[in-house]
């Protein structure tokens, strides 16, 4: 298949693996920022093919995993108590809130719908003028343009029964937080290709300079990832720390200006709490005053008490790359996809889910 099979070519993959083996002379820890890359590493068996000197550390780029517990509780509250039609991306549904998940709320009768595009939620609002429709707008910079566009569309079409429950997070501040953590041992990064499709690569230059760490913008297919790893290794082995772009077939230096304009029409940068981690300064988007009528937290009186995270879940350490999923005592035992202690076990981009579904490590 065009643009897929080329990047899963066994010959090419083998050539990159050989070159990685030839280039590496000592141990290096590389963080792949995005959960999609983590899944690719495990799902295609790349992780078992890499030389043992290379330690892949799984980063915080799982939008579902970092969405605060309180926000999931709020979404459930809106659907159950305020009678809204709550629309969400599919893989938010299984994530545990403090009492239940959206999937359980749906089973109990709440009107919760899985959508693939937030623009569809605007259509649902138009078709149901007597109901309030809320889109659970989570994600990194990648989903922000479409979520922002839904608000722009709703306003333009005079649809007033639509709002978003937003919790957008940003990649560069997360890389900063990882590097500032004393326990962090990351030598180089594979930056998230899809995020850079929107935002470009310019944001990474100050990080490279400040932390003296190579950052290679990388795609998601096996050959992309292997090439990205090779580029990081070559930099590390020669003592360089630069921004490089492996995913140049899609990512340009300036990103997608039209998408960025849409984001900043609706959102502005703010401090944001990351589930399992902490509040990271200037690490998320909030809705601008101009669009306050489309902000579900303003539109509805939702005062939900902050609930405690499950103390047995080490999601924070997993997402900062301090621990691997199989180093958690509950992995595959008390914590399974059907009964998760935390979000990384159920998200399609969660590191724990990747290892649970595709690796052979549960028995250990």
């Amino acid at each position: 298949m065009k643009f897929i099979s080329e990047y899963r070519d066994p010959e090419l993959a083998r050539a990159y693996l050989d070159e990685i083996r030839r280039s590496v002379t000592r141990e290096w820890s590389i963080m792949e920022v995005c959960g999609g890359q983590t899944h690719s590493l495990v799902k295609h068996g790349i992780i078992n093919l890499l030389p043992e000197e290379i330690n892949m550390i799984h980063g915080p780029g799982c939008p579902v995993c970092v969405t605060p517990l309180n926000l999931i509780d709020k979404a459930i509250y809106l659907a159950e108590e305020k009678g809204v039609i709550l629309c969400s991306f599919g893989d938010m549904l299984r994530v545990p809130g403090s009492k239940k998940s959206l999937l359980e709320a749906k089973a109990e009768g709440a009107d919760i719908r899985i959508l693939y595009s937030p623009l569809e939620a605007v259509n649902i609002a138009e078709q149901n003028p007597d109901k309030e429709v809320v889109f659970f707008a989570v994600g990194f910079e990648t989903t922000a343009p479409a979520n922002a566009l839904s608000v722009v569309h709703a306003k333009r079409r005079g649809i007033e029964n639509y709002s978003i429950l937003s919790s957008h997070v940003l990649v560069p501040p997360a890389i900063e937080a990882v590097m500032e953590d004393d326990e962090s041992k990351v030598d180089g990064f594979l930056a998230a290709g899809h995020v850079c499709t929107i935002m470009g690569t310019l944001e990474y230059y100050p990080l490279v300079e400040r932390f003296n760490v190579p950052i290679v913008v990388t795609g998601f297919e096996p050959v992309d990832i292997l090439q990205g790893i090779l580029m990081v290794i070559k930099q590390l082995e020669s003592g360089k720390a630069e921004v490089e772009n492996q995913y140049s077939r899609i990512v340009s230096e300036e990103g997608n200006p039209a998408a960025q304009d849409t984001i900043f029409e609706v959102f502005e940068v703010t401090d944001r709490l990351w589930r399992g981690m902490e509040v990271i300064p200037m690490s998320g988007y909030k809705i601008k005053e101009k669009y306050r009528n489309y902000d579900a937290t303003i539109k509805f009186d939702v005062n939900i008490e902050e609930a405690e995270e499950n103390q047995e879940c080490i999601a924070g350490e997993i997402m900062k790359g301090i621990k691997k999923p199989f180093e958690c005592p509950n992995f595959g035992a008390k914590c399974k996809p059907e009964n998760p202690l935390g979000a990384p076990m159920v998200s399609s981009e969660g590191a724990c889910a990747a290892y649970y579904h595709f690796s052979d490590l549960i028995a250990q």
Partner: protein
Amino acid sequence: MRLQCPMPKLDFDIITLGHGSGGVLTNKLLDAGVFDILQNDFLDQRHDGVVLNVDGPFAFTTDSFVVSPIKFPGGDIGDLAVNGTVNDLAMCGAIPLYLSLSFIIEEGLPMEEFWEILVSIKYACDKAGVQVVTGDTKVVEKGSGDKIFINTTGIGRLHTDAQIGTAFIQEGDCIILSGQIAAHGIAVMSQRDGISFETSVVSDTKNLNFCVEKLLDKYGKQIHLLKDPTRGGVATVLNEVARDTALGIEVEQAKFPIDSEVRGACELLGLDPLYVANEGLFLAFVAADIADEVVDLLHQTGEGKEAAIVGVVTAEHPRKVLLKSAIGGTRVVNMLTGEQLPRIC
């Protein structure tokens, strides 16, 4: 060729609670179409049940169909209800003969839609060579169902040479897939509210009984197991077999036949095609020495044109399914947890 079956003139447009009451309206509904379109000597008796004469060992199976939407590219709930049960009988090594047919209809279903489903059922029965010999119709209040649910139960006579079961699987057996994976699940999903997308993918729903019969005629007991990977997809069947035999399974990703558009849709939605539902596909576990011949035979049938050997049964890693990825890496294929949900980005 689809049957040309115009809907009879009726004095009602939608099905109401009264049509399930057992009284005048029920009879009107049955007389208006069900009995005529599915007509056979057994149904004509219009009795509470039916007396059948089946020789020797027979297979017996039941299945309920709740697909939403009820109509999708390549089929509808009527085709599924017949093919699903026919195929379950075929997987037992049986020649499907008779079906029961039971409807649970949500009031308000347009008669036209019900008629279309009946036509599909008739068409699928004729194609598979089975007869509906008994049935039931219930109507539930609006909101208590989702348009229409169908249950079919089937009886089939066991093929004289069939010896099918996990107990007969041996180390070294080859695993053959009869066609392309994941088409049904993607065709249905492409029509779902909220995630609909334009595609030319059609469901693979079809009866497999004649194709299976040919295999059994020629290879009999050398066909060790047949399974149709419907809900939960191929991965689920492989895991069930590994669990039940306490043997290991090795498959190769590159060998799985898959349509490029189906693959594209799976990539887009973040779904693993190994877990996506199929409705006209089977896995055959066969003795290694006949595997190539079986594939050749399948290639000559309409149902198995894309058949391929996708893996082997091994004594190593008991109870585990391992997949060799396209780039040569190895990973475990586990049982699906819950429903596959489309991802965020």
